[in-house]
């Protein structure tokens, strides 16, 4: 990633996300009231976050890859099932992944 790209992403993301927030304060309530829009909107974060788990944990460029990250994700899943708090989940995954990375 070039520095120009990095700056474009930082600024555009901030402008886009702030505009979306501001929209809620300026548009009439009825505009977003369509039931289909509401249903899809409720599912969008779930689909995107799920795809991001795959893209970050199982993919290198455009290939599916099984490596040290999957071990970390497995531990994260186990910790979530055990109702561990968020920081424990993230650190547990990182430590596991680092150990597998160095054993390799």
């Amino acid at each position, binding site marked *: 990633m070039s520095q120009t790209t990095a700056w474009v992403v930082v600024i555009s993301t*901030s402008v886009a996300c702030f505009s979306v927030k501001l929209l809620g304060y300026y548009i009439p309530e009825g505009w977003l009231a369509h039931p289909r829009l509401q249903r899809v*909107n409720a599912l*969008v974060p779930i689909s995107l976050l*799920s795809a991001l788990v795959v893209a970050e944990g199982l993919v290198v460029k455009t290939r599916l890859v099984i490596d040290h990250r999957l071990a970390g994700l497995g531990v994260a899943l186990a910790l979530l099932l055990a109702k561990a708090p968020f920081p424990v989940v993230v650190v547990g995954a990182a430590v596991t992944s680092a150990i597998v990375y160095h054993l390799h």
Partner: protein
Amino acid sequence: MARPLIRLGKNVNVTPAPRDTLRDALSVALTVGTYGVAFGAAGIAAGFSVLQTCLFSLLTFTGASQFAAVGVMAAGGGALSAVAAAAMIGTRNALYGLQMAPLVQVKGFRRFFAAHITIDESTAVALAQTPRGPHAMRSGFWLTGSGVFLFWNIFTLLGALGARALGNPASWGLDAAVPAAFLGLLWPRLTNNFLRVVAVSSMVFAMLVTPWLSAGVPIIASVLVAVAFGWRER
């Protein structure tokens, strides 16, 4: 970032006093704020500078969207995919704004700040104060929003500086911390079986299309799964 809010509901009816609102707001702000460490580290691992990572938290200030933008870039995706993913994850904030606008009723600069701190946490704490009346709801909104803003930015800086000091992200497991953070953000949203099916379907879909699309595009394409499942009433 929505996680701790679910627990707030239990205490809502106990004592209708502003002190309880303050306690709710501060406990949420501090807990969620510390997650900023994970974002700070993710920003550095994706190749952003400490300044850029901190600007995300100051100016974008909506956790899942920030993670999405740096996540797409870390996956080798293009700028357009990164911004689109962040914006789409952030659309729920517009719906929160619709609910908060009649409550906070501010104009000018304060309205801009109110919009900026309209996120999962501030909205949830405000709504959880409903039994205590509109004054408590307003306090809950401002205190939680400002509190998360303060702590999220402090901890982003600490995470970014820490990650930069560590060096190679894989060596410290930072490359696994990012997908684990996404899983941790996803987990509390999966409150029923339908939502779990949507999540698993989205993951399978992303895996299937990965070899055929440019890096980062499968993330955006997964919105089609949300559209497919949300199209008809259940």
